[in-house]
């Protein structure tokens, strides 16, 4: 039986990664260690001293860990949907090369989303292992908390790709990271509950994928029920993945097969 086109693309991406992984593997370990040490342990000591009852009943480090796992997955998804796509379309033009083979636009997009999501999984597994090493949550719970993180990462792969394929030049990407990704990272409930935000900002946080992922992940890692019903959040994240994935197709078709 013929291999699905998207899996052929997935394999190609894996082949590229096999040759280039050294560049990113150090930061995959270092990021969680630094965040957990600085924010969780350093800042956490101050927060805990001021809040005898803990945040939502737990220490700051415990509160933070699942949140930052999700926020980090979001960032990974965004990068995967940005630079690689820009390179494939505008720089190396390897996406054009693929389209001269039996691969079509749909297979190209799907394979890209699959692979990028696999990258989110890798980064998140490392993150969860670091969390477990900080003894915030047992390894099993940390690993389970990856589920929502991966959904959030995939949602951002789709959304960022849909944005990138519409860009005419690269300058849009740094803007996107500064004004969309970074605020989403900081203000979507990973570092503090969104109830701390001004009232008018709370609905904005509510529509970010990170918020839903953090709520799900936190409820798995430290118990309690999420603020939004779990299946609503999951459906919402899936809608991002599929919806933004679909809207990648038209602009890519116009650009790559004019």
């Amino acid at each position: 039986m013929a291999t699905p086109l998207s899996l052929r693309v997935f394999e190609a991406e894996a082949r590229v990664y096999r040759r280039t992984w050294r560049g990113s593997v150090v930061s995959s370990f270092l990021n969680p260690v630094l965040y957990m040490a600085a924010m969780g342990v350093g800042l956490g000591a101050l927060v805990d001293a001021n809040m005898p009852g803990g945040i939502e009943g737990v220490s700051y480090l415990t509160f933070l860990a699942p949140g930052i796992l999700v926020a980090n997955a979001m960032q990974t998804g965004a990068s995967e949907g940005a630079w690689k796509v820009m390179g494939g379309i505008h720089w190396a033009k390897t996406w054009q090369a693929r389209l001269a083979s039996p691969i079509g636009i749909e297979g190209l997009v799907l394979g890209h989303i699959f692979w990028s999501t696999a990258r989110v999984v890798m980064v998140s597994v490392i993150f969860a292992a670091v969390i477990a090493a900080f003894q915030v949550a047992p390894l099993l719970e940390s690993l389970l908390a990856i589920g929502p993180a991966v959904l959030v990462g995939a949602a951002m792969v789709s959304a960022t790709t849909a944005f990138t394929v519409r860009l005419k030049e690269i300058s849009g990407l740094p803007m996107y990271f500064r004004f969309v990704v970074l605020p989403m990272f900081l203000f979507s409930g990973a570092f503090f509950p969104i109830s701390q935000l001004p009232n008018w900002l709370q609905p904005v946080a509510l529509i970010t994928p990170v918020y839903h992922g953090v709520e799900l992940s936190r409820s798995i890692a430290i118990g309690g029920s999420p603020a939004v019903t779990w299946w609503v959040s999951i459906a919402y994240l899936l809608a991002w993945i599929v919806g933004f994935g679909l809207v990648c197709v038209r602009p890519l078709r116009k650009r790559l097969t004019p």
Partner: protein
Amino acid sequence: MTPLIKATKLTKVFGDLTAVDGIDFEVAEGESFGFLGPNGAGKTSTMKMIGATSPISGGELSVLGLDPATDGPTLRSRLGVVPQENNLDEELSVQDNLMMYGRYFDMSRAEIRERIDELLEFVQLVEKRNAKIQTLSGGMKRRVVIARGLINEPDLFILDEPTTGLDPQARHVLWDRLYRLKQQGVTLIITTHYMDEAEQLCDRLVIMDKGRIVAEGSPRSLIDEYAPGEVVELRFPGGVLETLNSRIESLAPRTEILADRALIYTEDAERTIGIVTETGLEPETVLARRSTLEDVFLRLTGRTLVE
């Protein structure tokens, strides 16, 4: 025999620009077929339609008996393409690039490995197997792209300006390889704006200009028809040429005055040179040569192929 490619009134429109303006042509199996034309003639647009990576805007097109619009993936699985731009994965080795591409065609790894051995031999890059693309010269990269295009043993091999931008030596290496393919009976489609490339590699060609086909035939028959005989090229010091227009035009029935030189078409170059000297014209240099496809293009369009 049914042709491998049949195009009827084939058209490509981008917004209000007509890049390919209703062209007709047929390519037979085993043939080496050329599209000769200057930049912007519509060559790449035509190649992309044949390669099923750009939908046709009008007319009809059948490639290997398939309709690119509905059988795109099947068609592409039987084509080899050397695009105008290299688009290799620069960070990967030659071998990885070829393996990756073969896998797009769902060939087994063992099959691809075998094919890579043959192809590296063929493009003379055996010792570069593990070199990263970014370390290769332009000519070597081009040969990798040719190997990549042949990985699936295509029934039709499409090359869009295979040697543009390469130095003469690298071009000759490529021509030699392409000539070998032609001898092996591979059906080739080559676009170029180099008339010597077209003369060397093509059994038959069309001359394209502004989206249209202005002439068709074998290199020999095109030259015989549009620019028979020989050419005398006269170069004059800057500014002098404009003052000599009428004197040069009176020398022969067919002359062309270009920016830097005058061309005189003649049956007998030596006699013409004699007349030039008798008339008292004092060109800086005089060159007698056989006419080429460049002269054919000039004759048909009033412009040169490479500006």
